[in-house]
Each structure stands twice: as structure tokens, then as C-alpha cells.
């Protein structure tokens, strides 16, 4: 079985695993990156979203082979406390969550949006996040946080 290579959070990575293994399982179990969350295993809730190249993708139903030679970014690669991404600053500023289990998937979804549109309308943000479920009802705060991050990215 050939190893599968991809770029993970900026670093070349080589994985020896069944190519049909879900990417989320590899990230969490093999690589110890637990920021992407398991919610449903069927790509229906978005808690496991990561960036593959510049697109937000549910990693629970994406086989490992599908990311071969691509760039995968997880919440751990979005930014750090020392060098936070504008979205991370904005989600803290807006206190945009309650339990936060859905949060990393939502931030990755938003990150994909901001890569293609740095000046989204409220409706565009909502449309971009429509694949992500939040059960606590923090939606409006999250939309505000994404708009805040977009504004910051435009002026910096």
C-alpha cells in the first residue's frame, strides 16, 4: 500500500494508512490533531471541516486518498495564540460561541469564504456557513465575528 503524501498545516506529511480511511480519523487518531471534531460521520453537520487547498470540506467522509498532494489546513494550522488568524481574534472579541464544539468547523468554513471574498455581505456569510450546524444558537454572533474578521483583513 503506497503512502499518501499531502501538505498539512504547511508541513509535508506522509501517512501510511488505508487510503479509504476518513481524513478525520487520520487527523485525530494518527496525527493527534483533535481540533477537528467528529459530529455525525456523514458530512451532515460540518464539525469536522478543514480546508483542502482553499475549499472547506467535511473530513469525516473524505477518504485519505482524496487529499493526496493537496494542502490541508486544520484549526490548529489556522493560527495560534501568538499569531492568531483574524477569525480567531474576531470570535474571541464577539464571544461567538456557547459550547464551541461546532466552532472549528465553522471557522474553517468561514476561512474558505474569506479566501474568495474579503467583503462578504451578511447573507453571503450565512450562505457560506449553511452546511455547518450549531445547536446552541450562537449563529448571529458567529456571523458578526466573520464580518469583523473580514473588515480587519481588508484594512490590514
Amino acid at each position, binding site marked *: 500500500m503506497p503512502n499518501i503524501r499531502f501538505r498539512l498545516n504547511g508541513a509535508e506529511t506522509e501517512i501510511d494508512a488505508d487510503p479509504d480511511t476518513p481524513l478525520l480519523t487520520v487527523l485525530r*487518531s494518527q496525527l493527534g490533531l483533535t481540533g477537528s471534531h467528529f459530529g455525525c460521520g456523514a458530512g451532515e453537520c460540518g464539525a469536522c471541516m478543514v480546508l483542502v487547498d482553499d475549499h472547506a470540506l467535511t473530513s469525516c467522509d473524505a477518504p485519505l486518498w482524496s487529499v493526496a498532494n493537496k494542502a490541508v489546513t486544520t484549526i490548529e494550522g489556522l493560527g495560534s495564540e501568538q499569531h492568531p488568524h483574524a477569525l480567531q481574534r474576531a470570535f474571541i472579541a464577539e464571544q461567538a460561541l456557547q459550547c464551541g464544539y461546532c466552532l472549528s468547523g465553522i471557522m474553517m468554513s468561514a476561512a474558505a469564504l474569506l479566501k474568495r471574498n474579503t467583503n462578504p455581505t451578511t447573507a453571503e456569510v*450565512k450562505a457560506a456557513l*449553511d452546511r455547518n450546524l450549531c*445547536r446552541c*444558537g450562537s449563529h448571529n454572533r458567529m456571523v458578526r465575528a466573520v464580518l469583523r474578521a473580514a473588515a480587519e483583513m481588508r484594512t490590514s
Partner: protein
Amino acid sequence: MEHELQKVSVSLAVNPKLSSWINFAEGKVIVSPGKVEIGQGIVTALAQIAADELDVDISRIEMVRAATPASPNEGVTSGSLSVQHSGRAIRFACAEIRQIFLNAAAERLGVAPDVLTITDGNIAGPGNVSTSYWELAGDISLDRDATAGAQPKSSAQRTLAGHSLQRLDIPDKVFGRPRFIQDSAPPGTLHGRVLRAELALARLIELNEERARKVEGLVAIVHDGNFAGVVCETEAAAEAAVTALRKGAKWSSSAALPDEDGLAEWLKQQPAVSTVIASKNATAPAAVARTIKRQYHRPYIAHGSIAPSCAMAQWDGDIVRVWTHSQGVYNLRSDLALVFKLPRENITVEHMEGAGCYGHNGADDVALDAALLAKATPGRTVRVQWSRADEMSHAPFGAAMAIEIEAGLDSDGEIASWRHTIWSNGHTARPGRAEQPTLLAASELAAPFPRAISLDPPPASGGGSDRNSVPLYDFPAWNIEAHRLTVMPVRTSALRTLGAQGNTFAIESLLDEIAVDRGEDPVAFRLRHLTDPRSRDVIQAAARRANWKPVKQDGVGYGIGFSRYKTTGAYCAAVAEVEVGEGIRVRKLTLAVDVGEAVNPDGVINQIEGGAIQATSWVLKERVRFDRTRITSSSWTEYPILRFSEVPEVEVEVISRPEIDPVGAGEAAHGPVTAAIANAVFDALGVRLRSLPITRDRLIAAMELS
């Protein structure tokens, strides 16, 4: 003494030892509440209260997660009581500890206690003399019982409580650091999965383990009656093994679930325990000229946590350690002790954060699952996680309800009598409260415990089916009766608000109907029946903020709903603006809330916003689906919830009353919002829908009838 404490704080009375709440170590203040973080921000609010009373910077506060046997036993984190119970206990404990340290400092420094000031834990007096909590801590034992003898600060003296501090748990979550139990699997941890049938109340009549035995990494297969599961070296292997085991399983079921489309009628026909909840006779009864009788219904509602339930367990001889996101570590421990027939002391249960649970979901059940599987692998920690399908079909649901209200109107059309009748399963079967365990697997074992039928908490604790069924309005007479079912084909337990959402929906819908029939404004009509100033204030504040009542437009409607949660908790009024076209869209919700002192105002707003949005989801979309043999809504496709593009704008006004003891905000919005939306739909179309959820199909059907 205990009686005195009881008056001040129930939590302190049960857990009087000061050191069980507060300790000092290396420049830190260690705070141990018995309540747990479930996404409501409680850890931050409690830290604010402690820092305020002790005069230390909040960065010095270290919050300890609840665990048996050391943490105070505060029962279950439920009922919007965390600030009320834990907050009050911590406030009084800290006030007393502050006084104890001031007295000790005065003695050491040779000055009077009242000339000392405390700044960030440093205790200073005239002439540059100073000491600190940490310097004195070695000489002061807090292993003493609280007396509640020290008065906490007045609202004007507080500098942290009352302010919107940022939540302490948010940075971890924003940077994707492991914080949830789902993210924890210490090295060497084994992974378990439990096999559960799609059929309801199924019996496992045959289990061929052959395929599962071939899975690489399999450590154990556990089969005990109708309970079966696997333990493997990796999570992927556990998934593969349980899939293989499923292929070798044969189930049978004699379950007869109700007809989903006749649920309200079914509820009314079942055997039940009947209780008169409240009864009031008019002092001068008016003759009833006309009665108006209406029936309301809500379906079973799923908790629908985004995270599947998860737990870890480890056996060492007859000592068990369990890690859980349960809302009550002591209660879970009690039930585990019953199942394993062990003294409670043999079991430690530690809380770890999970996702929002919104009530009693699968959190406790999965902990027993983990303990049952781990028993097969002594010395090894086993982590068990449920599947999405199990989460949506085997965890308890919020109970379905049928509610009938008959109002008697006098010759002037004024309300002269009020009869409110409820048919519902009980709203709680939480563990740790009965002689028998209520955990799912307990009823699946070869030597099974009886399957627990849900009960209702007593009215003094806010009630269950009957929660918020007694009108808050000044009606001259009423009679409230609840029929709690003694059969339970569909498993129910606590979901946010228990029966309050259904009862508030019913009461506020009928009030609206009577007001409209009279040609009276629904806000004015409510105010005319309310003398309580705090009730009036939230209604007036919400109405004012929503510009009640905006000019009528085609297809747009406005409605109001009001309640005081549990009759003793937070006051909340909501105005809904809905648009009915192709579908039903809630455009805006405007709420006013009064929780007394708002310890963290943004936290209160967050809870009310979240409650309002979740209630909108319940009203417009949610209904557990089933046929006669199984729950069919076992995925997000079959159990859709509100999405970003469907979420209304939400505006919240907090009426601040810093001098009044705080109550919780987590469940205040659901009832009022439900009613406000239903009333707004009527305002838009002139059709009343009395069954939840309010969907386009039901609206069309109702319009054809009318």
C-alpha cells in the same frame, strides 16, 4: 447552624466545609464548584463572583472541574440553577474566607481588621505593613464549616460581577486545543463501541461474533443479554468491529410505538397518574357566558447535541474510574454503584467538558457503556463514543405533550375561569434519584434492571409536565391538572424547560386568541391581567424595543409571548416578526429579560439569544419521527434543525437589577419565543396552529380547513 445555612444557600448547607469550595495555592485561588460547564459560561461567572468577593485578579482564579469525592455535591447542573446555587454558595464562602483572612492578617500585623485593605490578594494596612492570602494560608485551615456569618459585598462594591468579562474557556476552543472529553484519549487508551438495534426496545436473539473476531486490533467482545459491544486498540478498529458485529446480530422487538400522526390523542388515552397541580376559586364567581376550549400539542424533541456522547472508564480490581460529560457526577456515581453492586466509594466520577447537551441526553448512558466494556479489559482505559444514529434514537427525548385549556368567559368576555389539563410522559429520568438505575444499558443486561419510567419533579422544584402551567396572570379562578403517563414506549427525560415550553405555548396562544376576539391589543390585554411589576416591565420593554405594534404588511405578522420561567426564575418577554410566503420565516425576535443581578451581562444575552434561536428551531422544524417499530429520525437529514440562513435576527434587552439575587437565563426564552412565533403566524395569516412544529404543510392544511 445548618438551618441558618439552608436559608442562605442550599449548596453550602449540604457542603458546609469551606475548603471543599476554596483553597489557596502558589498565588492562585482554587475554586471547586459542584456545577459543570456545559457551554453556558458558568465557569466564568463563578470565577467572577469568587474574584470579586476575595479581591483578587480574575487571572488568579483556577476553576476545578467537578469530581467525586472531593467536589461539593450540588446534584445536577440543570434547571438554570448554577448561578443561583453555586454562585450563591461561592459568594458566601468567599465573603467568610475573606473575613477569616482579614482577622488573621490583623493579628499578624498588629492592626485592627477594619483598617486593612485587600488588593489582588495582598492584604495591607497603615504604615506599609502587608501580608497576603498565600502567606497566611499555611496557618489557616479552611477545613471548617461555613457559618454564613460574613455579609457579601453589596452590588455597588462589586467590580467584576455585573460586567461582561470574556469567557475563560473560549481561547482553548478558538485555537482548537483539546478541551472536550471527545478530544481526550491518553496514550494506551482502548476504544469501545456499543452495538444497538435500530428497532426500539429490541432483544438480541442471536450474536455471531465470527466476523468481528477477525478485525485486526480487537481486544474484547462483551455480550451480556441485549447489551453487546467491542473493545479495540484503535478507534478505526472499533468502528470496523462493531460494523462486523452488527452483521452477526439478530434482533426481535415487540415494541409498539404510537401512531406518530395521532400522538396527541394517544397521549390522552394512556394509563396515567393524575395530579391536581393548582386550584383556585373565585372570591366572587362570575357567571360563565361562554367557554372556549382549545387543544395544543408538542411532539417529542431531540436534544441533538452536535457531539455524540462519550465517556472513558477504567477498572482496577473493584475500583472504577469514570470520565464523563454528565451533568451530575455524584448522581451518575450512584447509578453506577447500583448497576455494579459496589459501594459508591469504589467509584470516582470526574467531569470533563462535552458539547452543549440541553438536558439529559446520552451523556450518562455512555458512561455506563464505557464501564461495562472496560470491565473486560482490567487496568486499561476504554473510551466509548456513540454514533450519530444512537445519539438521535437511543438517548432520551423531551416528552411529547397534549395540553387542553378551557377558558370560561363572562358576559363581558372577560376570563372568569381557566382549566388547564396536561397529558405527557414524565420529564425526567435522570440517574441518581431512585432505587433503580435509569441508565440505558442497565435495562439491557442479562440480569436487567427495570426500564425506568420518567417522573416529574415536584412542583416545589418547578415541576415537570406541569412546569409553568399555573398562570402568572390575575385570573379569578383556575384548575390545573396533569396526567403523567405510566407507560413509556418512547424514552423521555429532561430537555431544556421540561414542560414549560409546551405550557407557555398553550397559555400564551389562548390569551392571544381571547385578546384578538375581544378586539384588544395582545400586549395591553396581558398588562391588564398582570400586577407584578417585573412581569410588566419585561413585556413593556420588549414591546417598546420592537416598536409594538408595527404597521401591518402583507404576509408579515407580529406576536408576543411572556413567561417567568418556573414561576420563580427569570422573567422573559419576546416579540416575534414572521414572514409567511413560500415558507415560514422568523425574521426577528426582540426579547427583554430580567434575571435579577446579571453576573455576566453578555453571558445572559448569549443564553437568551441561544435559547431564542433553539426555540425557533423547535417551533419551525423539530419533531422526532418514528414508525411503529423504530425511531426513524436518526440523522440530521431526517431530523433537520435551523440553519444559518434561517436564523432570525435576535435583539435582547437585559433589565438590570443588581440588588436582586441572580437566577439563571438558560431556559427563559424558549416558552415565550414559541408562543410569540405562533401568535405572529396568526397575525400574518389569521390561522392558528396549535400543534408544533409549525410547518408550511400544516399551515396549508389549516388554511384549507378554515
